[in-house]
Structure formats: C-alpha cells, structure tokens
C-alpha cells in the first residue's frame, strides 16, 4: 500500500488543443507538483493491452484526464479493468474559465497554459485526497 502512486492518464487528444491542455496539466503534476506521489502511463499501451500497463492501472488508483466528451482515457481505463478513482474533462474546466481561450497543439498559448495550471492544481489536490483516503482504510 505504501508504494502506491496515483496514475494520471491524459488522453492522447491530438486533434484539438484541449488534448494538449490535459497532457500539459498531467506533466505539471507528475514532474513538478507531486513527482513522488504520481506517475503516468502511455494510454496507447493500455489500449493495446500491454501487461505492464494493465498491472499498473489495476494496482494503483487512476485519474483520467480527458480533453473532450469522448473520454478516451476514462473508457480505456475502464476497459482495462483499472482502478479508476476519478475522472476530469478539460471542457468542464473551460466552462468555468470562459475567459481562457486555449490554442495550439504543438505548443500551447499562454491561456492554454493557464488552464493547464488550474487543472494541474485540481489534479494535485485530488491525488492527495485519494492517497489520504487510502491511508485511512
């Protein structure tokens, strides 16, 4: 139980900037905010049923971060019988932050980066909450 990390799984969203927002938010959490408590996995590996990826999402709590309502990350974690603890959709955050207009897939504009920062903070809090609840079990 001690070694469990929250696996943050962004969608691969390559068609729209919202996929990149989720991806950048994930990196902010796993590389800067909570590197000791979180990690990620390639969603494509899950889609392909890779044994190591399946083991990881089944043995650790996961947060899906999806760019659009197709929710590829959430659906792929569920299809993998992963431990889906929570899921976030970038469009929900965009609705609550209407002044921000994310643009760019190769590189996000400043507003996209701000939205990613907001999502990263929410992700970070959620990861703490999930691990706190696990300790109390």
């Amino acid at each position, binding site marked *: 139980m001690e070694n469990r990390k929250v696996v943050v*799984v*962004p*969608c*691969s*969203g*390559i*068609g729209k900037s919202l*996929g990149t927002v989720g*991806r*950048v938010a*994930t*990196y*902010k959490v796993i*590389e800067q905010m909570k590197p000791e408590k979180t*990690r*990620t*996995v*390639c*969603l*494509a*590996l*899950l*889609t*392909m049923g*890779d044994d190591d990826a399946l083991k990881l999402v089944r043995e650790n709590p996961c947060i899906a971060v999806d760019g659009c309502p*197709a*929710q*590829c*990350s959430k*659906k*792929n974690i569920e*299809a993998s019988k992963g431990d889906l603890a929570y899921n976030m959709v970038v469009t929900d955050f965009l609705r609550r932050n209407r002044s921000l207009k994310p643009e760019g*897939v*190769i*590189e996000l504009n400043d507003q996209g980066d701000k939205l990613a920062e907001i999502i990263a903070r929410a992700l970070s809090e959620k990861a703490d909450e999930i691990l706190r609840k696990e300790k109390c079990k």
Partner: protein
Amino acid sequence: MTLATGKVGIICCSGEDLPEGTISRVATRLVLEKLRPDQTVTLCLPLFLAGGEDERAFARVFPTIAVDGCSKKCAEAGTKKFSGKPVATILVSEVMKKYPQLKIKSREKLEPQEMELAAKVAEEIVKKVDEILCKTAKK
C-alpha cells in the same frame, strides 16, 4: 469501403510516458499543420477503442502511416487491430539513430534540439506521404 484519394491518415502513439511519444506527436502535427496540411488527416489512437464504427473505419478509408515512439509500436499494432493495416510505420527511436547528436529528455515543452528531431521525423513522414500519394495517383 474504398480508399479515399488525395489524403493520407497519420496515427501517432502520442506516448505520454516517454519523450519519444511527444516527438511522435509533435512530428505528426508539423506534417498536419505545416508540411502537408491539405493531404493529411489524423485520429487519436485511443479513440479506436472509445469511439464507434466511424473511427474504426479510418484505416480502411485512408491509407495510413503509423508513427511510433518506441519498439512496442502501439500505433502500428493498434491501427492494425482496430481499423486496418498501416501502409508504413515510422519509428522515432530508429530515426534517432541517424541523428545521435540530437538528445531528447522532455515530455512537455520541447527544447530546440528536440524540435529539430521532431522536424527530422516529420520529414520522414512527408516522404512516405508523398510516396503513397504518387502510388495512388498512378492507379
């Protein structure tokens, strides 16, 4: 279902856990946005599983190039499994061997050296796109 003419589908792995995955993604976008915007289309790989029949028809409608970050070749295997066999595969880790001076470590924002490698991978994709379009035009 017949192949659409004049467009090539590009499916990249986007591998979130590896710098090579980000290179595959950026190279694909360079082709889509700058190098061959009118001749290429893409689809998110995990949408093959999460989406419906329209998404899964992708590689039957478009001749497709898979762009993979590592030797696990998820884009190639996923496209073949859910949609149709890709016409070609570009492997980032193989392209890297041609440019050993270009080192990569970032998964988020690419440094200039990493952008240079993404541009090299994009060039390889473009070569394949042009080859495929020439072949389909001759038919």
